[in-house]
């Protein structure tokens, strides 16, 4: 579903991945982690690193980004042998859609306002 176009706009096929990358500025690795989490329900950094065959630092940073973007929540769980581990849980895609739509509106408004002001001869100059 992630990489299957859900709409074609002026002959351009748009996927959910495209939208997340374009509107929220996320990267492929982050999009992959979010969608894998949706399938798994929840997971730790270790689970995801193994599952997606990426190193732990990459997964850790991708998760931090997703938490910041509001797409993933994390909670602390105490381990039976002591210490704790963070468990990451994605927000449902229906809720993610709201975040995307809000960002899309902000992006549209910003580009629209800038475009109305723009003057071809002065593009790139401040």
């Amino acid at each position, binding site marked *: 579903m992630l990489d299957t176009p859900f709409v074609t706009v002026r002959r351009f096929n748009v996927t959910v991945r495209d939208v997340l990358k374009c509107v*929220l*500025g*996320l990267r492929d690795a*982050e999009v992959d982690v979010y969608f894998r989490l949706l399938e798994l329900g929840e997971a730790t950094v270790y689970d995801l690193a193994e599952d997606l065959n990426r190193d732990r*630092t990459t997964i850790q*940073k991708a998760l*931090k*980004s*997703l*938490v*910041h*973007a*509001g797409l993933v929540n994390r909670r602390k769980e105490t381990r039976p042998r002591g210490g704790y581990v963070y468990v990451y849980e994605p927000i449902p895609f229906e809720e993610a859609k709201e975040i995307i739509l809000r*960002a899309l509106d*902000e*992006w549209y408004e*910003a580009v629209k306002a800038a475009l109305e002001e723009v003057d071809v001869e002065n593009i*790139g100059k401040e």
Partner: protein
Amino acid sequence: MRAPDGTYVVRLTLPPGFVPAEALRVVADLAEKYGDGRVHLTVRQTIEIPGVHPDRLEDLLEELRERGLEPGSTGPRVRQVTCCPGADTCPNALARTVPLARRLHEEFVDVWVPAKVKIAVSGCPRGCTRPEDNDVGVIGLGEGRWRVLAGGVDLGDYEGEDEVVEVIEDVLAWYSSNAPLGTRLKRFAAERAERLQEAVGVD
């Protein structure tokens, strides 16, 4: 990054503090091979290779990674952490900045945020890296204590690197869940000093 003449400027990510001479040799090679033989030393303590022809950009990025260097972040991400050399070489410093700056680099660089976030570490309150002007600033006070600022707002003093990492994590979480996309932390924090202090638990 595209320059007005249509060529590309490739920015690197360098670990804060000291750059190994070998990395500089690699940069020199790449600048001669793919660029115009010059580099720019940026205000954020990294290096940019200008004059890269669009057709050669992918090859440069590939060779860069093969030889152990990484391109720098652009867009809504935490940028390279800057620091002074600290007590390793500066007689005025009260703290060793490089280990903390590298730790922050590992924890935060390239993480998604609503707008770019710049972090600077200084080894004493003279603040040569301008911690008060950065989105997040950390000032060494000596004896393992650090003062943390966000947008110039004082968030209190912390004991040891772990506490510094934790408070910066809290600041970024507060910022990410409250600020509209595109609003810099510096401005957002300065305009909401009390709410931020409350969010990170400053008395």
